[in-house]
């Protein structure tokens, strides 16, 4: 059953502390440390606090989450994803596990557990951003302020988290497909990183929102996030955002479905 496979995968990942730390905790923690170091450096250089400084913790958290699908974070997410999806090839443990459950369940469980741990990682990103913001506010005597959007902020924040989570799931599904295809953790990390880097570089160069440009996941994600955080009066066409969401979901289904289809037909001769 799928529930059994999920429980086993969850248990297993909980014991793989190296993958958990580097894949899902390191990027938020290092971002926090850099932020704190930056604040300390500024304070040390200026020898005084700037009057009228404010810190918007909510927006800091949202900004940190929005950036959690970028190439830097993707490198670490790919390390975690590769451990989940290609670890059984690396350790030659498919022969231990495969006779216990169906192949679809085994890989689907990995995708679900990756989605879970990615969500926790995004929460950690938001939390560490708040901690860093609090430190910065204390160090620079900045006044804490609420988000300008007021109560609407919560829906904006939820939208950004969901869109970023969807982008992160795409990174996981990509690692799953490449991991199954290459049967290698390094292959999943390196090839995955190249793809993420190329598409995010291309997405920066693209300006016009067309159905072709929305096929680039990083660009579609950016269009969606801009739509979500924009005030209603300046929001762009909802149709474009809808198409961006649709394309992201199609990518997710294609990558995850491809990994599942490939794994189901794969001969495990050595593993």
């Amino acid at each position, binding site marked *: 059953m799928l529930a059994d496979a999920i429980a086993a995968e969850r*248990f297993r990942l909980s014991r793989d502390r190296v993958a958990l730390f580097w894949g899902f905790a390191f990027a938020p923690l290092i971002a926090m440390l850099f932020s704190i170091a930056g604040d300390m450096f500024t304070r040390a250089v200026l020898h005084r606090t700037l009057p009228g400084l404010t810190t918007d913790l909510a927006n800091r958290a949202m900004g940190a989450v929005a950036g959690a699908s970028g190439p830097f974070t993707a490198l670490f997410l790919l390390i975690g994803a590769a451990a989940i999806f290609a670890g059984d090839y690396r350790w030659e443990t498919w022969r231990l596990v*495969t006779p*216990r459950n169906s192949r679809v369940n085994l890989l689907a469980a990995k995708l679900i557990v990756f989605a879970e741990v990615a969500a926790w990682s995004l929460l950690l990103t938001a939390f560490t951003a708040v901690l860093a913001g609090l430190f910065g506010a204390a160090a620079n005597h900045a006044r804490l302020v609420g988000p300008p959007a007021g109560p609407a902020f919560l829906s904006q924040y939820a939208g950004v988290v969901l869109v970023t989570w969807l982008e992160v799931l795409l990174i996981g599904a990509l690692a799953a497909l490449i991991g199954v295809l290459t049967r290698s953790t390094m292959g999943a990390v390196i090839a995955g990183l190249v793809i993420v880097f190329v598409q995010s570089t291309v997405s920066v160069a693209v300006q016009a929102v067309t159905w072709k440009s929305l096929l680039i996941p990083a660009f579609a994600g950016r269009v969606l996030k801009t739509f979500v955080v924009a005030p209603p009066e300046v929001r762009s066409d909802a149709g474009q955002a809808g198409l961006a969401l649709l394309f992201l979901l199609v990518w997710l289904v294609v990558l995850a479905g491809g990994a599942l289809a490939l794994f189901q037909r794969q001969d495990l001769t050595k593993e």
Partner: protein
Amino acid sequence: MSFALEAEGLVKTYGAVRALDGLSLRVPTGGVFGVLGPNGAGKSTLFRIALGLVRPTSGTARLSGAPAGQASSLRRAGAMIETPRYPPYLTAREVLRMLALESGAGGTADINYWLERVGLGGAADRKAGTFSVGMKQRLGLAAAFFTRPELVILDEPTSGMDPAGIQEIRALIRDLADKEGVTIILASHQLDEVRRVCDRVAILSKGKLAAEGDVEALTGGKPRLRLTVSPVDKALAVLGDKGQPDGPNAVLADVLRAETPALIRALVEAGVEITEARWREADLESAYLGALEPPKNTFGDLVDAR
């Protein structure tokens, strides 16, 4: 009659290599069934197909009546394929815990019991990746048995173990088959192990079934007394239909152990000189080698050709 494993016209090719070449085999439920064959005969491929690790090129395989590789059949089976490997970050206990969760069977009590039974009670909380080959084999056996399966497939179960461990595992396998009714299919290169443990044997050669039958039938039945004698014809005359020549200066006597003193006395009285008398155990090696096609271009052939 029900079958634990049925293979019908099984073919598996890897590029130009034909690992299985139309293999048809039926393993009856109950007892211990041995699968013998040289390296590359197709034993591991057969097991991998049965467990759904590899897809056959053509032909069918069924495990406990259900198509091989399906969850319904796998739930009733346990397996250890080749030298088992484990995620290096899991302890022996955690490996079994993970497999218990994966299959939805086997509780903490089963895990503790089997770790003790295979002799890993003291190493249960050590990382399995640091184990010796023999300890990995023991953990693999615990993993194969702890969910109380009806059928267990073991590929070289005692490889890498010390002699005491081998004896222990052989006894365990026989015990599970005899007392708990588990059907065990095992592949081994150790003919002595197969002869001691198995009820029936199949010999594979080049992906085909070369021979199959009861161990006793394949080995020529009960042990026989081999006598090095002179002259051979006089000894054969004394033995009558119970004797047959075995080389230029020996005979094989098909007698009971209790008849040995009387037989030797009769031979001596008939003027036969006996220089050696030895019981020859049922000989699986001869059956095994006889079933295999002679290898081509062996080192010996090359030397002969020169």
